[in-house]
């Protein structure tokens, strides 16, 4: 989708149309999306609002609404599902659609674009190519409202001059590393000896070489063929950077509660807890710990997360973001709790989940989360996954 969040906000509010706007999180100044009018001034995602205002003094700020964007994505998915069931949700505003069985893929793509424009009211750019890697590249070539085709015979010419950072999956750090190895273009990446790439990047070396050659074997699955989650996690950017451990704990506990609810609803347990902490200087750290027995309850996840957090306390900078996830997932065998206290804890957790399901998330919450309440809790995770799409399809 084109400038997704900004486009939706301009659709909502006619007074914002044709104007440079940016969408930010509540209480925060980092830009999540900028409108095309703002981009003409050089305003980009991840800039801060003060930086953007220097480039564009008339910039308008809109606080984002994740629920609005998630629901819109579900509606877009519904449109695509009417055409085919081979759809992969790549992100909140990107889908891979397998059109290889269509008699006229270009006509199919045009139909998708016009239906989205007609029924949702915003534009998208489509790329048609032999595989996902190249289709993503093609979709980025013309924005907004583009339709770009990369034919097999065009691939080598395109890759010959393509800067490696244009390939999906190669970020700034990887680019710098490859540049140091003398690799600047996709062609040079494809020509790099596999051994050198494996020595530098391990198991990813083969994948990188394939990217340089324009090769991608990843299929587009049927949207309802959902593989089991490898991890379940949530992260949250605090409305205000926090030094107080009690505040950070409150948010961490809230996130552990969200993770626990998702695990239990999916009938899953996990053994590895990962914690991510981002400080106000944007330095981000992650650590994980694996426990002997599978866990699923909020306080079980929190205990492990709290242990990991001790590595970073006392904080050398205020905390901007915390995230927790549980991996090493397996199906919950429904093991009976041996001890009365644990059985009661599990029963209480189930009762709380039922009440919150009926009346809304965090209707009943632990007292320790009230600290986070005071600072502001965002109830929804802004990113959706294939699991949500399967549920709503």
């Amino acid at each position, binding site marked *: 989708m084109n400038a997704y969040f900004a486009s939706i906000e301009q659709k909502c*509010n*006619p007074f914002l149309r044709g104007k440079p706007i940016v969408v930010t999180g509540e209480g925060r100044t980092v830009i999540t999306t900028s409108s095309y009018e703002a981009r003409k001034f050089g305003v980009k995602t991840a800039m801060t609002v003060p930086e953007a205002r220097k480039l564009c003094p008339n910039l308008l700020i809109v606080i984002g609404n994740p*629920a609005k964007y998630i629901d819109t994505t579900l509606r877009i998915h519904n449109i695509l599902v009417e055409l085919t069931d081979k759809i992969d949700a790549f992100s909140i505003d990107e889908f891979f659609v397998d059109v290889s069985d269509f008699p006229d893929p270009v006509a199919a793509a045009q139909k998708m674009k016009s*239906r989205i424009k007609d029924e*949702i009211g915003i534009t998208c750019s489509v790329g048609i190519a032999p595989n996902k890697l190249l289709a993503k590249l093609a979709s980025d070539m013309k924005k907004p409202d583009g339709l770009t085709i990369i034919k097999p015979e065009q691939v080598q010419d395109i890759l010959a001059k393509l800067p490696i950072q244009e390939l999906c999956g190669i970020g700034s750090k990887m680019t710098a590393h490859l540049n140091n190895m003398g690799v600047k273009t996709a062609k040079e990446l494809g020509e790099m000896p596999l051994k050198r790439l494996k020595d530098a990047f391990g198991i990813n070396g083969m994948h990188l070489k394939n990217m340089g050659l324009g090769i991608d074997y990843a299929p587009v699955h049927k949207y309802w063929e959902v593989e089991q989650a490898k991890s379940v996690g949530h992260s949250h950017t605090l409305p205000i950077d926090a030094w107080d451990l009690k505040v950070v704990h409150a948010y961490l506990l809230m996130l552990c509660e969200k993770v626990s609810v998702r695990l239990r609803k999916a009938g899953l347990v996990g053994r590895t807890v990962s914690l991510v902490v981002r400080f106000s200087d944007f330095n981000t750290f992650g650590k994980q710990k694996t426990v002997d027995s599978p866990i699923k309850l909020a306080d079980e996840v929190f205990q492990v997360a709290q242990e990991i957090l001790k590595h970073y306390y006392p904080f050398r900078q205020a905390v901007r973001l915390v995230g927790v996830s549980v991996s090493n997932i397996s199906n919950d065998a429904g093991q009976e709790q041996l001890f009365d206290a644990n059985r009661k804890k599990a029963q209480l957790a189930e009762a709380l989940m039922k009440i919150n*399901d*009926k*009346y809304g998330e965090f209707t009943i919450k632990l007292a320790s989360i009230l600290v986070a309440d005071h600072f502001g809790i965002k109830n929804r995770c802004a990113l959706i996954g294939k699991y949500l799409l399967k549920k709503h399809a």
Partner: protein
Amino acid sequence: MMTQIDEKIKVGAVFACPEGRPANRGYDQKLKPVWFFWSGKKYPIKEITFSWKDRKGESDLYFFSVTDGQAVYEISYNDKSLVWMLEKVYVEAR
């Protein structure tokens, strides 16, 4: 400038019976607010610019971004309590 309001309002709406496949066109295809009363004044809705759905517990909340030509209003309908709310108002800075 966007202002948070969070007040209950009286709304006149049409519950439509659209033909074809309406779901993706917006929730106003089925539930179309036509006017609302706020602070003693009636606001006729000139255009529904966007709509979306959220969930709170067992309630589905239907949100509508609407305009009377002067300002933009975000109103919501809770399908469990059957209550309409004026969530926010946007007035262009002059």
